[in-house]
Structures are given as C-alpha cells and as structure tokens.
C-alpha cells in the first residue's frame, strides 16, 4: 500500500515536472511545478518528516510560487515568447539532460546504499528533534541564514527603488 503510494506520487511528480518544462505558458508552468511540490510534500509525509513537509508547503507553495505568480501577473508575461530556440539547441538541451541522467543512474545502479536500519527512529521528523539539531549543532549557520535573508531583503529594496533622476 505505502509502496504503491510512493510510486504514484513520484509518477505525478515526474510527469508534472516534465509538463512544467515543456509548457509554453509560464502560468501553467508555475501551476505544474506547484503540483510537483505538493507530491514532494506527500513524499515527505510518507517519510514521516511531517514538519518538513508542512514547512515545504508554507515556504514553496505559500511564498515562493506566489511570488512567481505575482511577477507573472504583474508583468503580464503569460504570453509565450514567440521566437523559439532552434531545433538543434533544443535537441542538445534534451540530450544533455538525459545523458546526465543516464550517467548518474548507471553510476549509482550498482551502488549498495547499505542495509535499511533495523530500528526506525520515528522522532526524526518531529519539530523538537529538528529544533534541537538546528539550535545546537547548526546555530551559527542558522544565524548566518537570517543575515542572508536580511541582506536579500535589503538588496531587493535597493533593486526596486526608483532611480533618482539627476540629469
């Protein structure tokens, strides 16, 4: 049952992401990626990482994708770009992607990832476990990431400030 669910979710994930990269309309691309993200969240839940799943939804679906939609709406960019890349470039792009996929899969095909753990630690995905890890071992990266946020915020404000006309 759970295994079937995994395969269904990963199929949704792959199909929607393929549709995402091939769809001409940027609006639809965003929505397909959204479907992909939801199925990824479903996979997180299946791995018992509920906290991460919900944070994933809040951050990706609730904030990042909304920003994308917002920009698309704001700039009216949903009309597809008419001049397309040449067939050759497209072919090369698809070839590159699939060859990288081929290389990675063949490289990892024979790899033994070791035995699954005998005792499953159910508490790994809990907020308290993650909180302890984050605030003990990764305290400095955590604080640095907040600085990263602040700096990106400042950067955005400077970016979109109206330029002073001083001619």
């Amino acid at each position: 049952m759970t295994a079937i669910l995994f395969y269904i979710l990963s199929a949704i994930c792959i199909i929607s992401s393929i549709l995402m990269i091939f769809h001409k309309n940027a609006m639809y691309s965003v929505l397909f990626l959204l479907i992909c993200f939801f199925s990824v969240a479903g996979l997180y839940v299946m791995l018992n990482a509920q906290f991460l799943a919900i944070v994933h939804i809040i951050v990706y679906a609730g904030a990042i994708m909304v920003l994308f939609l917002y920009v698309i709406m704001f700039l009216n960019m949903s009309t597809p770009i008419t001049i397309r890349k040449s067939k050759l470039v497209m072919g090369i792009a698809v070839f590159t992607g699939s060859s990288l996929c081929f290389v990675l899969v063949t490289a990892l095909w024979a790899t033994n990832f070791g035995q699954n753990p005998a005792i499953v630690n159910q508490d790994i995905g809990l907020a308290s476990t993650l909180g302890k890890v984050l605030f003990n071992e990764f305290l400095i990266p955590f604080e640095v990431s907040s600085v990263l946020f602040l700096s990106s915020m400042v950067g955005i404000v400077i970016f979109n400030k109206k330029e002073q006309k001083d001619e």
Partner: protein
Amino acid sequence: MNDISQLQDQLRLVPLEHYVFLCILLFCIGLTGVLLRRNMINVFLSIELMLNSINLLAVAFSVYYNDPNAQAFVFFIMVVAAAEVAVGLAMLVMIYRNVQTVDINALNNLKW
C-alpha cells in the same frame, strides 16, 4: 495515521535506490528545463525543481540512515532558495523594466 509500522513498511518496500533515482530524474528534468527554456521565469522554476530534488534526497537519506542532520540541511536549502527567488525575481522585474522582455537571449550586451 503515520504510525511506526507504516513507516517501517515503506522503508522495507521502497528501497533507498528508488528515492535516489527519482531525485536524479527530477534533477535532470530541472537541468533540461534550464537549458531548454528562454523565458527567465521558466529557468527560475527549473532551478527550484533542482533544489527540490536535492531536498527530497536529503530527507530520504536522513530517514533511511537515522540522522536528523540532513533534515536541518534541508532547512538551509529552503532558506537559500527563498532568498534566491526573492532576489532573482526582483532582478527579473528590473530587467523587464529596462529591456521589456524576459527572454534570456535578449540579454547579450556583455556578449563578446
């Protein structure tokens, strides 16, 4: 709902390899998207997909190897992704204001 037997079931029935292959596939789809598309928005979306495949991989490894550290990394990837998207989209809006297009091929002023 998500009790321990179910999790054990899944870990037994779905080998870690499958997660790895899924993530490889997603990553490569994202890469193809970056190379394929000319619309800057789509390029950004593909990058998000690539970051996500890494996230999924990290979570899968953390559960299969019983290590919460990997999930902490996922947080940092999310933070970076959020910051990246915010700055990137701000840049995109700026570019659109200046050259009236989001076609990456239009940005060839630095091309030698």
